[in-house]
């Protein structure tokens, strides 16, 4: 029984008003197409969790999808500020819950591992601990010293973009791995978008590369270029010009809403978006070829 469906239908079925959503991918494989589809469907009151909200959550906050963000770094990576999220926090219009990178992903690790908490060594810094009651301390029973602990994060739904998957959601992922795998295992439901849908035999040719197994995946959507303006290793480059441009676009409500209208609301799907970017952008973002050397699993 295939899990293949359209991104439209997957979002409709698994993303609901008020959900806790984790759109995963650390700088790499960020599922922008899914964010845009959520905006188009007008989902509201989401709690948006991501280590780095990046432009995807800036856009979703601007579109009114969110009531809260959970994060560990709100910047436009390599560029500067993330204007919408920052303004919404400064003005008190958006709830937020803040971590450091490691305490954030430790929450996912606890969620993915079925643990009630994950310990981490002290960092000495206590100001964030004082502001966020989710940080607790427990005594190490061996030395008596305190460690910091964080509770599990268990999103209602995770969205993960992968390079190639079969129709059951068994997925090969390579390049920067971020918190992708933990997000999938921590969440109640998983929507997978894939650059390529491949035959099961391709997946089975390299089982050590399968970081997300179909058994935790609910829906598989074939969405090439899903990650633009972030990137998909081996498929297309990061569109750094757009990251720079966003700093301009997001300076005023008008330019921002005009962007959303032109590039999200007025387009039916990612195909239309990619076509609209045009051949020059396609050309600029092309990834060349540098293949892995094969390994022999052996025939036994």
């Amino acid at each position, binding site marked *: 029984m295939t899990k293949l469906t359209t991104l439209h239908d997957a979002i409709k079925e698994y993303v609901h008003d008020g959900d806790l959503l984790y759109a995963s991918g*650390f*700088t*790499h494989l960020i599922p922008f197409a899914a964010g845009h589809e959520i905006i188009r469907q007008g989902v509201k009151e989401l709690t948006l969790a991501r*280590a*780095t909200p990046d432009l995807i959550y800036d856009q979703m906050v601007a579109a009114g999808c969110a009531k809260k963000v959970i*994060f*560990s*770094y*709100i*910047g436009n*990576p*390599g560029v500067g*500020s*993330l204007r919408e999220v*920052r303004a919404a*926090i*400064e003005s*008190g219009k958006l709830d937020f819950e*803040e*971590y*450091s*990178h*490691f*305490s954030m*992903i*430790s929450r996912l*690790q606890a969620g993915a591992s079925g643990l009630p908490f994950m310990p*981490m*060594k*002290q*960092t*000495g*810094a*206590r*100001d*964030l601990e004082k*502001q966020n009651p989710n940080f607790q301390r427990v005594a190490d029973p061996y030395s008596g*010293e*305190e460690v910091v602990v964080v509770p599990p994060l268990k999103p209602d739904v995770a969205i993960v973009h992968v390079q190639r998957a079969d129709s059951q959601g068994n997925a090969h992922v*390579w*390049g*920067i*791995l*971020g*918190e*992708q*795998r*933990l997000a999938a295992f921590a969440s109640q439901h998983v929507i997978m978008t894939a650059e390529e849908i491949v035959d099961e035999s391709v997946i089975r040719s390299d089982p050590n590369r399968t970081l997300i197994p179909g058994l935790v995946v609910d829906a598989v959507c074939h969405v090439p270029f899903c990650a633009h303006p972030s*990137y998909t*290793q081996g498929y297309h*480059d*990061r569109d*750094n010009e757009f*990251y720079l441009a966003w700093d301009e676009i997001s300076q005023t409500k008008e330019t921002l809403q005009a962007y959303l209208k032109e590039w999200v609301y007025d387009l039916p799907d990612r195909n239309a978006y990619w076509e609209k970017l045009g051949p020059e952008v396609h050309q600029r973002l092309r*990834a060349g070829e*540098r293949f892995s050397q094969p390994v022999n699993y052996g025939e036994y």
Partner: protein
Amino acid sequence: MDKLTYNPKELMVVNAARLLRDGDVVFVGVGIPNLACNLAMRTHAPNLQMIYEAGVIGAQPSRLPLSIGDPSLVTGALSVCSMVDIFTLYLQRGNVDVGFLGGAQIDQFGNINATVIGDYQNPKVRLPGSGGSMEIAGWANRCYIITPHQKRRFPAKVDFQTSIGFLDGGDARAKTGVRGGGPEAVVTDLGILKPDENGELVLAALHPGVDFEKVQENTGWALKQVQNCPVTDPPLQDELRILREELDPQRIYI
């Protein structure tokens, strides 16, 4: 090329590079720390090992990485792992010798604020937040801070301790039980600050042509200086050539 002409950023990169030791395992960010590491590798520290918080070990980027997760860091790297692995197996385990830090404010005891100006719940300016710097500051064996020297960046006390230096000084840092050694130097465009035995940042070197008064003017506390405060060697022609011609020919960061 005139070897005696250089800009403040080049000066910071060169001085940061010189602090690295051959064989160091370094937790690198993009921008100036990345340039400093690559410069050190091409000069006195050929065995430097660079780790990126995105999970990349031993990158050989074919271009200047513009983000911490640039795909050119991955292609041709020695190893790529998950974020949990990079923070646990490398950083928390004690396998990282050097971390680089920056922030909006650095105070008298090397504590850093990258979170908020004003009150946390009612911010004047909301900054990006910790990212990985809380853990890097705590767990790297030693840290270097690189930042331009301006009074607003060097208050006596930070509004928020995102990541720690020596807290209130004395044995305050050690008493937390944190594993790393804390900041060893702050490299600015005016000179180099280092912690004294009490953990207070004092002027340890001046860059050529800068005097103590200039540094004091740009520092938010009564600055001490080491006896016979030395002057740093100016950037060498070779250092500048590597930086300008090989590492950042488009002058994105310098």
